């Protein structure tokens, strides 16, 4: 075999290798197709499967109905109680995460000495790495008893499984995410803005909150949007601590059911393939998927916006 034959056959073999790589890379596209196909397909089945009373679920009733009783008669499939439950927990979580996450980010980016930063960052990573089932346990066995004692002192009626406890713990869970993305945004604000602020005689808190934070606002907004998306999709904390009563309520002391918690509840019972229960989880899953996808797209758009501006 002469040299040119050798390079030719080698080039051909490498072309095949690269082609195989491309096929493997397409697995991610297949995953997306599978997700979209099965969510829509089973949701279609959901609307064409008879309820126990012989009627079909109407899309309008599903999206805007306020009664969710899929497991007992009379069956009703209004998804709003589940959406409200998810949003209630999410709002509490986001308030906690903004307070804790944003101040952690400002502290680490603007105030903390390099050694303090080096000490704090791994702890945040540990917080981010704790499995959600552990957070759920913590909410139920530690936070809920404290909240119940507190509410008794104030004179409110509180149920063991409640949105407040789940929301607070979920806020702690997304704090590392919010603080890490916000901190990146704060750090990428150019030093000369800070210098200019100090030169005008501003104190540190004025520089931090009136100059640096506004300059990094789109990054901070991105961190919050991505945090919301994470909270909406989170499953175990709400399943363990927030209960399984689909309540159309905004009272955080009551028991609710989140969308993800409903999916888990049905999954635990091994719903038979093709039954109405089985297709219900895909209809709820589709709502969940659309909500998180929209938020993720907004979040990514915001991240790109701040990385372009400096």
């Amino acid at each position, binding site marked *: 075999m002469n040299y040119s034959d050798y390079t030719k056959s080698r080039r051909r073999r490498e072309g095949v290798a*690269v082609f195989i790589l491309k096929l493997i890379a397409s697995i991610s596209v297949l995953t997306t197709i599978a997700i979209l196909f099965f969510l829509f397909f089973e949701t279609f089945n959901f609307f064409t499967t008879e309820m126990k009373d012989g009627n079909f679920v109407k899309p309008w009733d599903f999206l805007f109905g306020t009664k969710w009783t899929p497991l007992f008669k009379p069956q009703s499939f209004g998804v709003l109680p589940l959406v409200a439950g998810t949003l209630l927990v999410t709002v509490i979580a986001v308030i906690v995460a903004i307070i804790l996450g944003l101040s952690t980010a400002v502290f680490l980016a603007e*105030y903390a000495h390099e050694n303090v930063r080096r000490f704090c960052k791994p702890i945040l990573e540990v917080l981010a790495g704790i499995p959600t089932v552990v957070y759920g346990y913590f909410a139920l066995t530690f936070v809920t008893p404290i909240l119940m004692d507190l509410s008794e002192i104030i004179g409110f009626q509180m149920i063991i499984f409640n949105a407040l406890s789940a929301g607070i713990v979920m806020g702690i869970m997304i704090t590392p995410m919010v603080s890490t993305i916000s901190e990146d945004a704060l750090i990428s604000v150019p030093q000369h803005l800070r210098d200019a602020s100090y030169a005008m005689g501003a104190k540190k808190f004025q520089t931090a909150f009136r100059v640096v934070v506004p300059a990094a606002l789109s990054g901070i907004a991105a961190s919050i949007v991505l945090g919301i998306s994470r909270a909406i999709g989170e499953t175990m904390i709400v399943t363990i601590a927030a209960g399984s009563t689909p309540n159309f309520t905004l009272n955080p002391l009551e028991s609710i059911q989140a969308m993800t918690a409903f999916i888990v509840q049905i999954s635990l019972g091994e719903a038979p393939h093709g039954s109405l229960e089985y297709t219900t989880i895909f209809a709820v899953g589709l709502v969940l998927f659309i909500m998180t996808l929209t938020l993720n797209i907004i979040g990514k758009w915001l991240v790109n916006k701040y990385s372009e501006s400096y």
Partner: protein
Amino acid sequence: MLNKNQFIIRGRIDWFVQILLIVSVCVAFLTLGALLFDVWVDGSPWFDWQFFNSFPSRKPEIAGIKAAFYGTIWVMGITASLAIPIGIATAVYLEMFADNTRFNRFIKLNISNLAGVPSIIYGIIGMAVFVEFFQLGRVILAGSLTMTLLILPIIIISSQEAIKQVPSGYMDTALALGSTKWQAVVRIILPQAIPGIVSGFILAMSRAIGESAPMIAISALVYLTFLPEGPLDRFTVMPIQIYNWISQPQDEFRGLAAAGIILLLIMLLSLNSFAIILRDYFQKR
């Protein structure tokens, strides 16, 4: 002009804000402390050899985590052996060989979107595809395949970052010496990128070990009193077992759940220490 009083007030606000920030950082860290303390107090009386070496039971005194532990090992083993080659191959393709065509841009966008899909969605899709469509049933292989899809985006993105970190001079030098692009990637770039790839992979695995929701969708709540012997056996994993104990009404089961959490956290800790040791080893070489 600021008068002296305003100047003092501003100084006090500055000090106050700083204290406030430190307090809220401490709240986050104290929560971590409280969480670990809570788990340790509840779980340590139950955390013994008997717990590790027993099957689940209705009687808390003789219940243990053996079946779930072996289930976790099985699922993680198969997931790792699927996710590593697929993840690295995709990252290499996207970073090294993919030209800027519409299809390749679509793959990149697609991967970053997949990373944000809630894990429970992966669970129900895995159930629809592997359990029902391919008729695998609620077995280890179906769980591993689902878990592979779930952690692939993490592995791909971190491997891409690791490959990007390799200075472009390495590639240029290899090409200038007459190697083909393939040789340069396999023999020069990849070995340089291994520390980053390994730590990304271990991060993904620690995420996978703690995932409960998708595994519940695949495996449901089974009561296993035997060890899985192959990829086509039914299984349960540690987070499911922990969740199962948490949802029991008796307090003793809470203790078992906490003991399970201790074991889970120990596994995560050793996995991460292993990642650090590996990274140091590769960096020294």
